[in-house]
């Protein structure tokens, strides 16, 4: 039987720090794809997720609803991913972050690399649009799940997703 998040959190807070591994395994798998898709670089995403887990451990006593650790952690992860993206924009040459030129994107499509074209277009969205699009179409979550994780209403999330799709269609349509 799998321990609940609340049970694990309480055990960790009571001094059994090794139990934290169960939360790391659980949410590394649950949110890993989200981190990679929103950050746009696997190594940077792993750094962001690692830092998020450590920050969550440090602040675990402030987790008001241990049974909803996942949603609490997700918000820490989201902030961490945003920080990493902002830092990368400050340090990585723009041409490495922005979507490829029309020629490069065309070439990617010719090779059937639809995923690469999408990844490149994702980098052009606002952080909120990118997060919403990834949760909806890459992770395949329902709006209700997204609302639970982000603490944002369903209608607002639909708006973000719709705007993200519109932007994605424009960005990807421009290279077809």
């Amino acid at each position, binding site marked *: 039987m799998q321990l609940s998040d609340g049970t694990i959190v309480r055990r960790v*807070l009571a001094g059994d720090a090794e139990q934290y591994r169960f939360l790391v395994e659980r949410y590394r798998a649950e949110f890993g794809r989200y981190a990679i*898709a929103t950050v746009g670089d*696997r190594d940077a995403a*792993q750094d962001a997720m*690692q830092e998020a887990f450590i920050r969550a451990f*440090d602040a675990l006593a402030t987790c008001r609803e241990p049974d909803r650790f996942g949603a609490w952690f997700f918000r820490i992860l989201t902030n961490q991913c945003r920080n990493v993206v902002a830092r990368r924009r400050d340090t990585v040459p723009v041409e490495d972050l922005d979507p490829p030129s029309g020629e490069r994107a065309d070439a990617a499509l010719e090779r059937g690399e639809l995923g690469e074209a999408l990844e490149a277009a994702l980098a052009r969205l606002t952080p909120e649009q990118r997060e919403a699009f990834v949760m909806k179409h890459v992770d*395949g979550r329902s709006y209700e799940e997204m609302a639970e994780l982000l603490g944002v209403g369903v209608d607002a999330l639909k708006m973000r997703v719709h705007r993200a799709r519109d932007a994605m*269609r424009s960005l990807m349509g421009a290279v077809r």
Partner: protein
Amino acid sequence: MIERDGFSQDAHRYLDGEPYGDLGGAEASAADRLTAQAREFAAGVEPFGADLDAAVMAAVRRRAPARRPGRLEWLLAPRTVNVRPVWVPVLAAAAALVVFLAPHRPAPEAPPVVAARPVTDTVFVHFELAAPRARSVSVAGSFNGWRVGALAMNRGANGVWTATAALPVGEHRYEFVVDGTQWVPDPTAHAVVDDGFGGRNSVIVVGPKGLVRS
């Protein structure tokens, strides 16, 4: 360069799995292409491996011993002994409690505890926290291994939680734990110290003559 407008509302409904109206072939094709691209992207993402777990847990182990201050820290700390008037009745009650409990202790071969014997190594300390909406409150500190629930407090009718503990002479750090998870410093503590993790530990100093500063 952006050359096209976005999707129609019907296309968004289609993509959201909701009932939709008239959807032209080109728009349906664009919507399907977008979801196919998202699926392909998702399939191509290699999940993080156990190396991430190992890195996190290594950091956790480095921090875990320092998460709460060391249990022997007070042995090395300089001690100051003062007394606040609020503790005088508590100490008197503690001495009375020692006398009251002595005959019931299951150790007949041990020397009996007598009221005249000065309390030089242990002092009864009374903890109190007003938390009318709490479901449970306990005291976790350096004197009980920071174990949540090791010293449970009793709720009074006015929502004030109380507990009494025999503390050895020395400096101790503690926090109240509300509902098993929320760590709260003692609002009446004489001193608080940073626990190194964004929290604040309350400090209590128990002197060799039964004097207490909190």
